[in-house]
């Protein structure tokens, strides 16, 4: 292992000091403080039910699965779903690579980016604020709830934001609470979509949906138009987690105690900030020359692979198949639905799709559709606020020295209540999606961040990790392909069609 003996890093708060530290072995990665070598904990059994993937599912199983893909299936037929298969599979590989750095070091991918080139991390810091501070993402779920109950969506969204803030403030350990809540909500979502699809769909719909996943190469001419090309590209990019959601997953993985994350204390709610343990501002590395440590590492890789394939890939597929079956059932009973969906803007098309469901299968179908959109919105809200506050506080704490006196818990609380307060003001008095003049820029940034994190991943995992645990050539090729795909399609769409909004 390419680690060094002294000069050792200065001891961070709460760690051993004195002569012990002088002998400490470290792993030098980039220009930042080296990572001390520590023991890698033993990996749990690879088969498990609940893990940090619930956060990725809560964030990722959203508009793409419930609305964008069913819409594409209605317009182009179920054969289009092979592109979804590619999109989700690509995201599963990205997830595994995000996990590689986080589990090996206990650092977030943001810190990995800072080790490569600090401005790269600040780019993600600014992008997160620019893209995620606007509360527009709440509009779909709260809007669906308004359609269901008649309660104005601004009221639901405002109350929802305050409740989320209070919940996270009072929690002793935010991650533990959120994992439990999201675990139940995702479970209900999976059960609910299966039951809904059972009630409204048919064997033929399911058969066509499944067969469509393997219609590789199906690419109708209509897709290469200004109206549909950006939508198709956006749907592939947003199949599963989109924007910066994969980057935040590294924080949840660390918080769950996966790999070297076990050496980093968990973030406590603001009300319990007095109990917050001093957190190191850089991660740790394990001894990759030690075969026993490498064996444990392989155990962790098996654990996260199960997460990526069975939980993330599997649940995403299940939910989207169920929604597609519902959409196809609606279209068969009411052929006019295709026209409504085809012509509708996103905001207008959601109620249109619900109405179409209603016309096709009665008010039960409309209610089912809106109910699930509300549930998905609730999941996303819980996950998004936590992720945003977690990401921003991690970058601030780790890379702005003067902020450390506040502690990670207070910084988390600051960003959480900051985004909530801003959200409430904007929801009630301003443009929820952001100012109209910069909407295109925000949409561009969201997709651009995905290409950028693929490039970041390649740099971080191949330059900042010891050789024995770096990714293989195939993995690098897949991540490289993802970078070219996200960035290439985005620029192609902007340059050829002049459209940067992929939604």
């Amino acid at each position, binding site marked *: 292992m390419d680690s060094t003996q002294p000069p050792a890093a200065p001891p961070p708060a709460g760690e051993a000091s004195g002569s012990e530290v002088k002998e400490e072995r470290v792993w030098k990665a980039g220009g930042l403080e080296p990572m001390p070598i520590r023991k890698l904990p033993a*990996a*749990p*059994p*690879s*088969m498990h*039910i*609940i893990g940090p993937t619930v956060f990725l599912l809560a964030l990722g199983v959203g508009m793409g699965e419930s609305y964008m893909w069913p819409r594409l299936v209605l317009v182009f037929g179920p054969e289009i779903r092979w592109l979804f298969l590619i999109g989700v599979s690509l995201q599963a590989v990205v997830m595994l690579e995000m996990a590689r750095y986080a589990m090996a070091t206990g650092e977030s991918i943001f810190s990995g980016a800072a080790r490569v080139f600090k401005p790269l991390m600040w780019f993600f810091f600014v992008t997160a604020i620019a893209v995620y501070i606007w509360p527009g993402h709440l509009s779909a779920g709260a809007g669906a709830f308004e359609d*269901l*109950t008649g309660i104005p969506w601004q009221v639901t969204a405002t109350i929802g934001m305050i409740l989320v803030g209070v919940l996270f403030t009072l929690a002793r350990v935010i991650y533990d609470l959120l994992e*439990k809540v999201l*675990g*139940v909500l*995702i*479970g*209900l*979502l*999976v*059960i*609910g*979509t*299966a*039951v*809904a*699809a*059972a*009630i409204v*769909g*048919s*064997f*033929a719909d*399911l058969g066509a949906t499944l067969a469509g996943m393997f219609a590789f190469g199906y690419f109708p001419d209509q897709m290469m138009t200004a109206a549909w090309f950006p939508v198709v590209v956006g749907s592939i990019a947003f199949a599963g987690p989109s924007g910066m959601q994969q980057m935040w997953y590294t924080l949840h993985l660390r918080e769950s105690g996966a790999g070297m994350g076990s050496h980093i204390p968990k973030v406590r709610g603001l009300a319990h900030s007095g109990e917050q343990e001093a957190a190191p501002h850089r991660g740790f590395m394990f001894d990759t020359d030690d*075969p*026993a440590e490498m*064996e*444990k590492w*392989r*155990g962790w890789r098996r654990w996260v692979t199960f997460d990526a394939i069975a939980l993330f890939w*599997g*649940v995403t597929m*299940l939910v989207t*198949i*169920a929604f597609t079956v519902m959409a196809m059932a609606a279209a068969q009973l009411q052929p006019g639905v295709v026209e409504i969906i085809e012509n509708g803007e996103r905001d207008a098309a959601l109620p249109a799709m619900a109405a179409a469901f*209603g016309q096709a299968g*009665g*008010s*039960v*179908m*409309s*209610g*089912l559709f809106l*109910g699930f959109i509300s549930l998905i919105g609730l999941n996303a809200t819980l996950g998004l606020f936590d992720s945003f506050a977690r990401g921003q506080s991690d970058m601030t704490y780790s890379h702005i020295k003067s902020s450390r006196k506040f502690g990670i818990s207070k910084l988390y609380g600051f960003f959480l209540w900051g985004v909530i307060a801003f959200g409430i003001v904007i929801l009630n008095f301003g443009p929820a999606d952001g100012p109209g003049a910069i909407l295109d820029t925000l949409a561009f940034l969201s997709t651009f961040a995905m290409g950028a994190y693929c490039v970041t991943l390649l740099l971080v995992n191949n330059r900042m990790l010891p050789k024995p645990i770096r990714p293989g050539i195939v993995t690098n090729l897949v991540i490289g392909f993802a970078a070219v795909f996200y960035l290439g399609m985005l620029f192609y769409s902007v340059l050829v069609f002049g459209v940067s909004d992929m939604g």
Partner: protein
Amino acid sequence: MSTVITSRPAGLGELMLPGAGIGASTGLMAGGLALVAGLPLHLAAVHLIMLGLPMALFGGGYTLLCARGTAKPGAFGPAAVYWLLAFPIARIVHEATVQLYVVGRPGLPEALWAFALYNALLSTGFAFGFIWLHEKLIPLWLMRIRGHNPRAEALLEVYTSYASMIFEHQQQRDALRRARRERRRKQ
């Protein structure tokens, strides 16, 4: 301190609650959403009961299978097989009884085999969600009732020993893998 439950039905009934609750939630989903969507109260109630009841029985039955040791705790395979049969049956009962209520005579869905096959395929998704929630809820429930329900105590023991067994199995597998690697290195 609570009284120890000695009655067999009461003990089993209490034990079944997590699985039965998850099963019943499907009825709540169907009935609740039907109500919100504007169906008359009585029809929403019929959906709730006619789907919720068989699913609650099957859900509770699965917990009992875990207690008997027939289904391994935390394993997806047995749950998938169980719901492959149970889910289509519950759906056929649901369809038939709703029809009985609406038109006055029970009726099976058209193309019964396709209907059953379709629901059997979807049951995998349902089983996934079921086992996900079941494994999350049952240890909490068992710890809550173990003091007065000997069956719960026994099932909790099964869960604990299963977790230890999995861990030991993993350790053994890792040791074997290490030994194989060592041998290869020496060769």
